[in-house]
């Protein structure tokens, strides 16, 4: 029998108290933290200070929460351009952890944490698990990749802080995932939604009956997914599938989380201040209307990120949530305002594929990226047109080119993707900006 997901939710985890603050208390706390972090960033981050000085704004100009609009935006490229440590705002002896995620052109983006930052991260992850009704009695199988990627360690330490039992299985090896899930009595799993879809298919082939598993919740994130996927997962397995939101630049997983109502994601607003702006005019959008999500880290000391442009398109849900939490929600991330896409939890920009192709070929060949779904997983195929220069008469010669291109891409992305050599002029030419990504998912 499945344990009902909400059997144990009557008690509020102590860490979750800020989720229930009265609006004026929350705003007071936010303003206090916004003023402090603005001053900290101004005093310790050269790039931020230069931009503030250029626009004639000082930390003292932040008197209300709306004054956040006076602050300059931070772009993903700012993190790349200051690689590796340019945005760190504390001395290195205070930095206790580094993580990295892929950047726009192959160089990773490095993020740093002080001890205090790690504590904040654990706290928001505990609150995220609590949103899913998990507690110290749960056995959490963490199938996020461990390593530089924030997902693995973020979910891990959060689960330990919750007091739950963590199985640090990391990603991959589906057969072992299923075996462990059954034999260890896993009650909750953390993974990308596409990986869990893959596990569902895999389990079906193994003849698994989900009724025999005590699994009751899935915490799925690190890539966009849909309500349809959630319904499919819940229908197939009988678990509750929760959406978790986060990004390395801000902290990792634990910026926002869906609750038992499963209607949008609560943002842990006491640590992450959100705005929605028109991605073109930068004007604030009213609640309920779609725009680009902007996040300011209110507590992060090692690397404060002010008004970060996430390029994620969503809207704020102003109505109070029936779960009782007072922190606001955003709708599930529907799409992005740039050309980034996510495959197997890895952020990918077409510009990275270009950079890889140029490592092998002297001039950029015509190429396109086809996104599709296979075996429940999002996959990508890079199609590259053969040229007179790259075509050699022997199978071995053509396969060598294929291998060089595949390896250059794997080197930059960190994951292997399918590469197909195609005949010239088979990739559609478009006027103006080339359409590089065909999304068949």
């Amino acid at each position, binding site marked *: 029998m499945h344990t009902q997901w909400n059997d144990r939710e009557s008690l509020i985890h102590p860490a979750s108290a800020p989720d229930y603050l009265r609006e004026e208390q929350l705003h007071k706390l936010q303003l206090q933290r916004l003023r402090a972090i603005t001053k900290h960033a101004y005093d310790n981050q050269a790039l931020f200070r230069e931009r503030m000085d250029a626009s004639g704004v000082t930390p003292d100009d932040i008197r209300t929460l709306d004054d956040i609009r006076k602050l300059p935006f931070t772009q993903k490229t700012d993190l790349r351009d200051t690689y590796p440590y340019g945005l760190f705002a504390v001395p290195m002896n205070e930095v206790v952890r580094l993580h990295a995620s892929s950047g726009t052109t192959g160089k990773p983006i490095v993020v740093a944490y002080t001890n205090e930052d790690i504590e904040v991260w654990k706290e928001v992850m505990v609150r995220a698990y609590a949103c899913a009704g998990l507690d110290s009695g749960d056995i959490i199988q963490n199938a996020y990749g461990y390593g530089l990627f924030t997902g693995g360690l973020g979910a891990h330490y959060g689960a330990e802080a919750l007091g739950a039992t963590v199985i640090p299985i990391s990603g991959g090896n589906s057969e072992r995932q299923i075996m462990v899930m059954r034999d260890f009595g896993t009650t909750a799993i953390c993974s990308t939604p596409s990986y869990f879809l893959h596990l569902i298919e895999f389990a079906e082939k193994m003849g698994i009956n989900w009724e025999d598993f005590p699994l009751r919740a899935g915490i799925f994130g690190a890539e966009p997914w849909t309500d349809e996927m959630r319904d499919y997962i819940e229908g197939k397995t009988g678990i509750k599938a929760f959406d978790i939101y986060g990004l390395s630049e801000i902290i990792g997983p634990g910026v926002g989380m869906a609750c038992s109502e499963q209607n949008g994601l609560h943002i842990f607003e006491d640590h992450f201040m959100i705005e929605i702006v028109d991605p073109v005019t930068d004007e604030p959008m009213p609640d309920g209307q779609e725009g680009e999500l902007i996040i300011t880290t209110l507590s992060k000391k090692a690397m404060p990120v002010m008004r970060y442009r996430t390029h994620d398109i969503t809207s704020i849900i102003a109505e109070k949530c029936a779960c009782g939490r007072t922190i606001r929600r955003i709708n599930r991330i529907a799409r992005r305002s740039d050309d980034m896409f996510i495959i197997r939890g890895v952020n990918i920009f077409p510009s990275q594929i270009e950079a890889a192709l140029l490592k092998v070929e002297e001039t950029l060949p015509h190429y396109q990226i086809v996104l599709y779904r296979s075996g429940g997983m999002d996959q990508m195929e890079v199609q590259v047109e*053969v*040229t*007179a220069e790259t*075509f*050699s*008469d*022997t*199978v*071995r010669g*053509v*396969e060598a080119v*294929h291998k060089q291109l595949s390896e250059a891409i794997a080197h930059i992305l960190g994951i292997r993707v399918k590469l*197909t*050599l*195609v*005949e*010239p*002029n*088979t990739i559609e030419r478009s006027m103006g900006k080339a359409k590089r990504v065909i999304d068949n998912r």
Partner: protein
Amino acid sequence: MKLKQLSVFLENKPGRLRELCALLADNGINMITISLADTEQFGILRLIVSDCEAAKTILEAKGFVAKITEVIAVEVNDEPGGLRDVLQVEDAAGISVEYMYAFTIKSGENAVLLFRFDDMDKAVVALKSAGFKVLDRVTLFQHSEN
């Protein structure tokens, strides 16, 4: 003493070979022989045609990637051991075959073997000194038009 061959990259998709053949036929290009090397992903078509340069221009104009390469054509008796004898000579000279294909001349008595060796110049010398008949373009076409 080498023969010009046309090599064309082909994607593995239905109808592509027919399109290429139609293009050559419509332009009066005759194929003497043809060989297709295929892999899971793509194919390489190798052709001996009546006019290599013209065929290349025609195919390229229609978006094919075509390359003129060289092969060695050896005429042997169409009987058991014909190919073995040639390979014996090349093995002895330390030359490897990269690929090969063959066809019979219309009279039915002789076969022509087409080779791509790793060392083409050395291969020609070895074959000739062993007494093999290495064909050039002209004689090859004379044969095929008999």
